[in-house]
């Protein structure tokens, strides 16, 4: 049966709507939530991860995933007895789940790190802090990315 104009238009409309949801883009190279969990467990081990204390400052919507400013800070006195040992940042859907590990000490004074990252897709970013008493605290943020990074073709 030949496609009628009406059918064609409704189909095209459907594609546009679907196109607004970036998850539709098929990209074989991506870290799955399972890889994210594995990467987190690699750092944390079997320890319990609690929510809170960590703050992740990252724009909720980015146009260009090639350079996304990100600041992680942790509420901590940064004394010899109570400080942040390290901050670990992970993503869900880049080809690799790791973003960076940052090692601090009481002489840091303030537990805050900023950098610029790449995001290959609309996804979740997780920041985990390891405190001096070996407790782990985390926060996650959802970021919508309109132009993906990491896997695009080179010109």
């Amino acid at each position: 049966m030949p496609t009628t104009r009406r059918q064609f238009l409704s189909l095209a409309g459907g594609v546009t709507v679907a196109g607004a949801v970036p998850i539709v883009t098929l990209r074989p190279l991506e870290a799955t939530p399972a890889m994210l969990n594995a990467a987190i467990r690699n750092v944390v081990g079997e320890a319990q991860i609690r929510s809170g204390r960590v703050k992740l400052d990252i724009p909720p919507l980015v146009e260009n995933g090639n350079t996304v400013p990100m600041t992680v800070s942790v509420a901590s006195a940064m004394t010899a007895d109570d400080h942040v040992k390290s901050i670990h940042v992970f993503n869900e859907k880049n080809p690799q789940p790791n973003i960076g590990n940052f090692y601090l000490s009481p002489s840091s004074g303030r537990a805050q790190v900023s950098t610029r990252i790449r995001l290959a897709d609309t996804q979740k970013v997780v920041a985990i802090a390891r405190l001096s008493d070996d407790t782990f605290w985390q926060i996650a943020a959802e970021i919508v990315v309109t132009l993906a990074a990491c896997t695009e073709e080179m010109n």
Partner: protein
Amino acid sequence: MAALINVPAKARRGDIIEIRTLTSHIMETGFRHTADGKLVPRDIITSFTCRYNGTEIFRADLFPAIAANLYLSFFTVAKESGKFEFEWIGDNGYSSTASASIIVE
């Protein structure tokens, strides 16, 4: 100059100061292909270290998910006058160093 370092020239003892560094580097992810389908090999900075008068105060392990031209900002307590030394290490034997001095009153 390969790196831009921003450290306050003077600080009072005990002040918490911010250190910002910017390095020019392509940070090729190793996941991109050329138009004819060849994989572009990875070329990134994998490690950054900052030492304050010889003592390590900040270190980072970096992955392809870090944007090109590595930017890092972190904090430290100004304890004594002296020198900050920065070191970047990466793929293909990449190594770069820089330093900045501070006067603590």
